[in-house]
């Protein structure tokens, strides 16, 4: 039984200029202990997808279709007060910017104690304090420092604290949204190592959202490539690296410089991502695709299976692939 099952999810932003379909027809599942990477450029809907899993899509975003099941509970239907028992305890979110996510006038320890006691009111102050110490120690921060204020910590340390706050209630699933984008490479590697080791210690599943395909390929078991709200490809990271199917994935892989290679020739993907108010008809990628066929401009390709644990949304593979049966029942 998967820990998380997302089925035909669609999310809209209803703005005054019109409606944007930010996430369209996304389905995947995640088992305990697995790591899933959401890769995509800005505006691809990867953060919206991540936020919808804990139902925190900002206004004017609305989940318009589909199901999100965490441990068999469909959270799309839950009421707001019921969601509070899911967030933090079942699924937690690590935000991108550690500089603005902490309260500047509160000591680090107070952040943890408030979190623990809000979710578990019968825990005393002493016990919450002891638990905070253990978590902070696991983050590689000296336990004396829990009496310090956020500004006394460096960016990397603050991101560690954010991670600590996410795992303090021992959730089954942690969603990390660009957790290292604001950080330097050495600190970035350490934060990702920390996430990996915590994931092993606490046995949680991890969704890693990043625009950096290198990080995702290096750190995740499975990958979803997002583009203009659609999942274009879904595969294990080894499959995705050895055998990328979608022209967009292929293009992305050819446009990231690899530190291991000399005389690499980077190939650019022509054009630019679509205007989401006015998306192209048919496949969202066709205006930039070098294999574009007639059908791509009129019909949206379905997600089809092209191998074990490998799915792609592209007409190039229509005949060879097997159509995926999706559960449309509500």
């Amino acid at each position: 039984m998967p820990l998380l099952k997302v089925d035909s999810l669609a999310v809209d932003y209803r703005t005054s200029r019109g409606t944007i379909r930010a996430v369209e027809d996304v389905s995947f599942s995640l088992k305990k202990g697995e790591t899933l990477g959401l890769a995509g450029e800005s505006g691809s809907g990867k953060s919206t997808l991540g936020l919808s899993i804990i139902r925190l899509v900002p206004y004017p975003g609305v989940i318009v279709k589909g199901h999100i099941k965490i441990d068999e509970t469909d959270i799309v239907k839950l009421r707001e007060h019921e969601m509070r028992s899911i967030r933090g305890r079942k699924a937690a979110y690590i935000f991108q910017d550690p500089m603005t996510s902490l309260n500047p006038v509160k000591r680090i320890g107070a952040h943890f104690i408030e979190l623990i006691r809000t979710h578990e009111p019968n825990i005393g102050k002493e016990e919450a304090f002891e638990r905070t110490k253990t978590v902070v120690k696991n983050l590689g921060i000296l336990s004396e420092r829990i009496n310090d204020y956020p500004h006394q910590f460096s960016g990397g340390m603050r991101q560690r604290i954010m991670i600590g706050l996410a795992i303090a209630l021992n959730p089954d699933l942690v969603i990390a949204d660009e957790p290292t984008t604001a950080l330097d490479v050495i600190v970035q590697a350490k934060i990702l190592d920390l996430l990996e080791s915590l994931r092993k210690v606490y046995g949680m599943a991890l969704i890693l959202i990043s625009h950096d395909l290198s990080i995702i390929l290096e750190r995740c078991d499975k990958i979803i490539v997002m583009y203009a709200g659609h999942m274009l490809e879904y595969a294990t990271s080894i499959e995705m690296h050895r055998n990328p199917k979608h022209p967009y994935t292929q293009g992305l892989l050819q446009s990231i410089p690899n530190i291991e290679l000399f005389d690499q020739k980077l190939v650019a993907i022509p054009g630019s991502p679509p205007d989401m108010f006015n998306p192209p008809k048919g496949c969202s990628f066709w205006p930039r695709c070098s294999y574009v066929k007639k059908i791509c401009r009129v019909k949206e390709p379905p997600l089809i299976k092209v191998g074990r644990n490998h799915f792609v949304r592209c007409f190039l593979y229509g005949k060879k692939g097997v159509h995926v049966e999706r559960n449309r029942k509500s």
Partner: protein
Amino acid sequence: MAKKVFMLSEIVKVEQLKKYFPVQKSFLEQLFTRELSYVKAVDNVAFSIRSGEIFTLAGESGCGKTTAGRVVVRLLEPTSGKIYFNGKDITKLRGEKLRLLRRKMQMIFQDPYASLNPRMKVVAAVGHPLGIHELAKGGEKKKMVLEVLEKVGLTPPEQFVNLFPHQLSGGQRQRVALARSIILRPEFMVADEPVSMIDVSLRTTIIDLMLNFRKELGLTYLFITHDLAVAKYISDRIAIMYLGKIIEMGSKELLFLDPKHPYTQALLLAIPVPNPELERKRLGLTGEVPSAIDVPTGCRFHPRCPYNTDKCSKEEPQLIEVEKGHFVACHLMK
């Protein structure tokens, strides 16, 4: 043949360059301490750039790479040191002479959302340098703008000239910024993280354009980046900076195949590689980059260095040539 000789000449040379920023103190502190403290953003840096090459300053945030770039084009006044351009000392140039120099050296910035005036149409922004230097007016100016827009791949250019920056995507804005910087046909350009805010799929086009201009217009670049993978792709030579100093410098082959400084080694091992089947080793570094106000004594890297010895905390290592064209500042090298 003639080109080869040209390649070897140095277009930019920097000697003992320092840029210190004074730190603001509170009133009370000012009363009780006489001494001013400084952020030593660039602390005794020397390098030279050959004509036609792409020289990269790389390092983590706060290492002084951007400050160094700005000092080189005289956007910031150096605290001390000398800057030469085409063999001429430009450290103290002022007024009209400086303005004429700016025609030959241009800069392109990281954030295309901030570097373009939101109230200036593309045609005005790109043509602006022509006006400042009184090189072209009216129809001729517009013709030159159209030409240069075509060069940066904004085609057909007529479609773009009357747009405002907010009507363009990030990648298109960066192309406009690039067009504006090459319209004067400069010889030298400082490119400060020109692709780090641009989506991956559009990055390559900007990089390719820059490489093209080197060939077509004979441009020389000082490229500034934190991304060593991009640096490796684009550069001929790279200097790694740490806390205001160059700690290793050499051709990209030397630097990537045989990194000597422990910091360079740690940096290279920390870079993610897009290959899930590769086992990575990492060099455990402790701590984070210290503040540039209280620089550690001796070697600046010693508190984090795994090979730290007594000497390292006492004596500052000099940048020495350990093999031809490969410079390292580390006591391990002797």
